[in-house]
């Protein structure tokens, strides 16, 4: 028989009228879709809103965060009159210094971050004290202290303490420091003093490690970049580091950008997991409506009408789920912001970022379309005859779904790539997700084939359990995909989280020294070592000359590249930015390894030489025999590259990109720096006090305190990650429940028939356990392989951390997931098992 074309159909309004009638007000049957979309879009909305809020704060409050429109920093010297005059031409100038110092009160000593500011500070924003006063620079002889300094010194407002032997009055406790974020990671609590204080006690002696910072508030509308460029041209060798209001806190910008990217990927993972749930949910929903669809067809509905009616129902549920997700994402942002308080500038309270919400909604609806299209398009083929015959064989796949799935996926990829900060990473993630889903689908197919070919067990229950895996209409494929993806996600998150914890907990404390000491006068090194040895005989002290300078030029002798002329710093060439620590040595530093060239050895007095970090050399294409010119306290020094070496940066000891031969730079004024490793459990108070008393101009950095700070920050980051990850886990749980519930609906018939035929409850329970146990064992192996493989990629390739997973934790999480699957699968059958066979028959 030939066929005519399918023309005409139901209008949208009538379709919606019919759809609405059939749609339960509480979305019964579509709740899995609703929950999955709620979680996925909620996570993305919260992440997008939070990231956008922080970024807009960073951008919008640039002047306040920087304390000016432009900042000029230089190490170990003040600006010259000429340089100051150049800044004064541009606008109002505020200057000051930053350095490490020791604050002392009675028997208490605390390493602090000393911030000396002039009367003009702050040019933008206001310093607020905890008592509510809004103030500027403190008067001479007074100081504003961070709460941490007050606690360490055991003082209160009005009490005295000393820095570098100079008595100071604690005049107030800092509540809100406007330019705190642009100061970067601090090695101690802040103490703000007047501009002349450090110099008056000799803390700014030649060679001391301090930083001069000058901020300018432009007197007229200017481009900060243009001003920076003209200053660079005018003072090419001054060794200035510049920052502008548009990039007040580059570290925070980078951090927010990377964190935002990572969290978005976690959100997308949640949405992909949710997508599987959506597919399963829609499938079950339409399966349950087989009779209604057939009835509508009997009454004259065409397959297109069916797609319209049920597409509208699913669309309505998707819209409601997404909308609820957006509301939840919007509502939880203040909580996430509170978790990040102090780490990043986030507007407190609710933040409305329409773009972030729109992107989250678009992701949600697209994912719903991609995963709902296949079951929806397949439902159009439910025949009217389904009413008159018992269950008809499973329907074949419909190619029309491919267009929807393909279109939706293309839109998701386009959206991810267009909105991503690192499109490659996002693209890679999506490709990985597609490959993973493909592999799981393949595995599901493989399990069906194997189960079909396996010998039939003699026991009818085992035979049925095996048959359930491959019989027509078996949900094995859907179960394997959903459970496999969900369990893999659990393993992935556990492996990432435990690996990051492992990096923090295992590596850093084991290898870090207890103290860094800065600015030890060159002529008093022996006295310093003796002092430490007298107090802590088992301590290990290592000292190195400590200078700072900027790389001005590098390359072959006749073709050196001037850094100031470079338009862009190559990847991995971070030492070209601003001033860096420099040192000189007779011997190859401990923990370094020579990879090219030769070391100069002790008592070398030939051509000035320098040893360069091999990674840095590779980034700027530098080879032994080339030259490097550095600016050291305003004087240019050139040295030939003698060798390249690798550095173990994680050792947290003294690590320098450039190590010179002593004759190259030892004549420049400088001090020494030291690391002190104390035996475990050593009491540190007396040693700190001795050092402060005998070396008042030196500063001590307590690594324990710094690490504690770092842990707090990492803890906050961890909280944000965990919050996002738990959404993925929740979505995974919803999918697991949905997949098992859908499969259970099919099993109910078998269970009842087995009960009628005389199977005991125990036997039926065993049958369920056998089927799910078999699947669980296979999926556990798959999830372990997939999850840890992907986690390795994230930890090692994305974060560049060491692979330190906690296997007990991972296996625990996987075991809990499997247990959950088995318990839920079995628990669902209990009502039927409790019922008498006759009752169970009526329940069908």
């Amino acid at each position, binding site marked *: 028989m030939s066929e005519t074309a399918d023309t005409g159909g139901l209008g949208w309004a009538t379709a919606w009228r019919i759809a609405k009638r059939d749609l339960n007000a509480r979305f019964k049957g579509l709740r899995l879709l609703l929950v999955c979309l709620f979680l996925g879009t909620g996570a993305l909305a919260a992440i997008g809103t939070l990231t956008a809020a922080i970024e807009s704060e960073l951008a919008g409050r640039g002047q306040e965060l920087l304390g000016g429109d432009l900042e000029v920093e230089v190490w170990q010297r003040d600006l010259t009159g000429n340089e100051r005059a150049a800044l004064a031409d541009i606008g109002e100038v505020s200057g000051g210094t930053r350095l490490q110092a020791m604050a002392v009160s009675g028997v208490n000593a605390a390493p602090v971050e000393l911030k000396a500011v002039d009367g003009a500070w702050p040019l933008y924003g206001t310093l607020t004290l905890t008592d509510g006063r809004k103030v500027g620079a403190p008067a001479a002889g007074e100081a504003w202290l961070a709460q941490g300094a007050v606690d360490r010194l055991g003082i209160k407002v009005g009490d005295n303490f000393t820095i570098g032997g100079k008595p100071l009055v604690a005049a107030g406790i800092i509540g809100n420091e406007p330019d705190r974020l642009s100061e970067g990671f601090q090695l101690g609590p802040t103490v703000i003093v007047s501009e002349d204080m450090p110099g008056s006690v000799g803390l700014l002696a030649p060679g001391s490690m301090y930083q001069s910072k000058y901020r300018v508030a432009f007197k007229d509308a200017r481009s900060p970049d243009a001003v920076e460029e003209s200053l660079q041209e005018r003072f090419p060798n001054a060794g200035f580091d510049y920052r502008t209001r548009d990039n007040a806190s580059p570290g925070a910008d980078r951090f927010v950008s990377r964190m935002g990217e990572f969290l978005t990927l976690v959100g997308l993972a949640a949405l992909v997991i949710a997508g599987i749930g959506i597919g399963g949910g829609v499938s079950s929903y339409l399966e349950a409506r087989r*009779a209604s669809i057939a009835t509508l067809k009997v009454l004259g509905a065409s397959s297109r009408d069916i797609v319209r009616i049920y597409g509208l129902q699913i669309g309505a549920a998707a819209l409601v789920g997404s909308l609820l997700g957006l509301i939840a994402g919007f509502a939880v942002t203040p909580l996430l912001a509170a978790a990040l308080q102090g780490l990043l500038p986030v507007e407190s309270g609710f933040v409305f970022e329409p773009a972030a919400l729109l992107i989250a909604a678009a992701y949600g609806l697209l994912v719903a379309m991609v995963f709902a299209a296949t079951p929806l398009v397949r439902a159009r083929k439910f025949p009217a005859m389904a009413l008159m015959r018992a269950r008809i064989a499973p329907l074949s796949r419909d190619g029309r779904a491919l267009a929807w799935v393909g279109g939706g996926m293309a839109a998701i990829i386009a959206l991810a790539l267009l909105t991503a900060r690192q499109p490659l990473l996002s693209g890679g993630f999506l490709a990985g997700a597609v490959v993973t889903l493909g592999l799981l689908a393949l595995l599901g197919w493989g399990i069906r084939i194997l189960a079909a070919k396996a010998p039939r067990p003699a026991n009818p229950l085992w035979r049925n359990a095996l048959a359930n895996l491959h019989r027509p209409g078996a949900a094995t494929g859907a179960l394997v995909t959903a459970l496999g993806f969900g369990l893999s996600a659990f393993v992935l998150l556990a492996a990432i989280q435990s690996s990051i914890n492992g990096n923090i907990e295992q590596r850093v404390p084991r290898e870090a020294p207890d103290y860094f000491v800065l600015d030890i006068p060159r002529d008093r090194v022996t006295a310093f070592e003796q002092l430490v040895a007298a107090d802590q005989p088992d301590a290990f002290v290592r000292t190195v000359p400590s200078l700072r300078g900027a790389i001005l030029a590098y390359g072959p002798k006749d073709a050196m590249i001037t850094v100031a002329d470079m338009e862009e710093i190559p990847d991995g060439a971070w030492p070209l930015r601003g001033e860096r620590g420099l040192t000189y040595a007779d011997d190859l530093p401990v923990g370094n390894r020579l990879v090219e060239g030769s070391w100069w050895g002790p008592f070398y007095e030939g051509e000035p030489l320098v040893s360069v970090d091999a990674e840095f050399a590779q980034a700027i294409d530098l080879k032994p025999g080339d030259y490097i010119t550095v600016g050291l306290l305003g004087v240019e020094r050139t040295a030939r590259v003698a060798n390249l070496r690798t550095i173990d940066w994680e050792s947290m000891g003294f690590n320098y990109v450039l190590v010179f031969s002593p004759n190259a730079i030892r004549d420049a004024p400088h001090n020494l720096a030291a690391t002190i490793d104390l035996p475990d459990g050593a009491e540190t108070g007396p040693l700190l006090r001795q050092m402060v008393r005998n070396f008042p101009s030196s500063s001590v950095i307590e690594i324990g305190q710094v690490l504690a700070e770092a842990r707090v920050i990492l803890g906050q980051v961890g909280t944000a990650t965990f919050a996002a990850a738990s959404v993925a886990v929740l979505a995974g749980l919803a999918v697991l429940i949905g997949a098992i519930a859908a499969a259970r609906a099919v099993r109910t018939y078998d269970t009842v028939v087995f009960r009628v035929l005389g199977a005991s409850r125990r036997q039926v329970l065993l049958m369920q356990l056998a089927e799910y146990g078999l699947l669980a064992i296979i999926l556990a192996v798959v999830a372990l392989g997939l999850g840890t493989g992907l986690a390795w990629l994230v930890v090692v390739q994305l974060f560049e951390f060491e692979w330190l997973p906690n296997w007990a934790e991972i296996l625990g999480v996987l075991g809990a997931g499997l247990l959950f699957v088995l318990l839920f699968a079995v628990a669902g059958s209990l009502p039927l098992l409790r019922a008498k066979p006759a009752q169970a028959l009526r329940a069908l």
Partner: protein
Amino acid sequence: MTSPNNAPFAISARNLTLTLGDGDAAVEILRGIDLDVADGEVLALLGPSGSGKSSLMAVLSGLERATSGSLTVAGENFSVMNEDGLARARRGKIGIVLQAFHLLPTMTATENVATPMELAGAKDAAPRATAELEAVGLGHRLTHYPAQLSGGEQQRVALARAIAPRPQLIFADEPTGNLDVATGHDIIELMFARRAEAGATLVIITHDPELAARCDRIVTIADGLIATDSAAA
């Protein structure tokens, strides 16, 4: 195409076959049916279980496409239509009553009756549905859901749903099979009354000889073929 007394045929089937399944699993359900049903005729289809009478009704009503043969129903050439074409051809022209009622469980009685008219694009579906329900004695059950109705009431709703669009043909597949004798009798009375009022052709599948005797013509099916075709006594 017309009947011998020049009335147009509501149904005209030639050499209809229906085979389900493929290869070794293929089953011939209908093996060459020739059948003409005149406009306004009331036809009873009788036959033992598995004889093919329900399948014949499914093919004649457009629920199933015949494997081969030609079929014209209500002036439409069913032989060349795909499933969607058949669905549209049913709209407004064919009403179907099934043994198990098959009401839409999520819709009220009125909505159930209105749905086929809405599918056919009628603007006045709701008032017509209400009127038809009142005509079958369910004026007091308009907003009830199927689960809130008795079996007899559900079948009345199904009958109203089939008749409300004023179809040219009504097919009824054992409409009393799920009902007790008294209720079944009421439903049959109602069905015949409503059909007469609408002037529609009625094809009814039944095992009940008494019911068959009330029809104009009785066709018995056996093993996928028409065994007898006679006027009712």
